[in-house]
């Protein structure tokens, strides 16, 4: 079982609030990712990181920001939440190596913005 954790698991907040979704992994993986997924739909990459102090935007435009100050920690922040941000946010990590590079996913954070 992969050791990747996300908190909170569920969050209901009002419009305009600032929130941070936490993601931590204990596998020493260099690469980490944030995906947004609506129920039953495909995963959309919103941010990723190759390693410490490296962050990149993904394919889906997002109003969120991320930071990677430590290898194990990759938090995602929404400065001002809106109802359109309601979704599930999945964090994942993988080794930075050639060959098999499967991604390990956290349990996700289900965000509802009222």
């Amino acid at each position, binding site marked *: 079982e992969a050791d990747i954790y996300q908190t909170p698991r569920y969050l209901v907040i009002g419009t305009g609030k600032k929130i941070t979704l936490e993601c931590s992994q204990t596998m020493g993986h260099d*690469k980490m*990712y944030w*995906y947004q997924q609506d129920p*039953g*739909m*495909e*995963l959309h*990459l919103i941010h*990723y990181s*190759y390693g410490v102090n490296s962050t990149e935007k*993904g*394919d889906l435009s997002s109003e969120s920001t991320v930071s990677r100050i430590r290898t194990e920690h990759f938090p995602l922040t929404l400065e001002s939440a809106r109802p359109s941000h309601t979704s599930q946010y*999945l964090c*994942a990590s993988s080794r*930075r190596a*050639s060959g*098999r*590079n*499967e*991604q*390990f*996913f*956290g*349990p*996700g954070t289900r965000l509802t913005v009222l």
Partner: protein
Amino acid sequence: GQQVMQIPQYQHVQEGEDFTTYCNSSTTLSNIQWYKQRPGGHPVFLIQLVKSGEVKKQKRLTFQFGEAKKNSSLHITATQTTDVGTYFCALPEGNEKLTFGTGTRLTIIP
């Protein structure tokens, strides 16, 4: 990024029937991965295929990589209720990212 089509989008089968999902790419792939996501859960890695024409089996699941390395399939023999979920293929983008397919949602009629 590219959009990766999987067909069908949904599949409802009687328990015991077989199931197949297909994943198609417009470009030649270095490898392809498959993931399963149970309802309410998160994606879990199933397998990675690398070689042209490769066929791999995991119990009742058979994975195939096309000869041209542009498509792949996942076949489940004699489905069980534990097979319920959404199956995603995932294609590499460089060495750092994956593009996930649109997914096939499998439901089982007991």
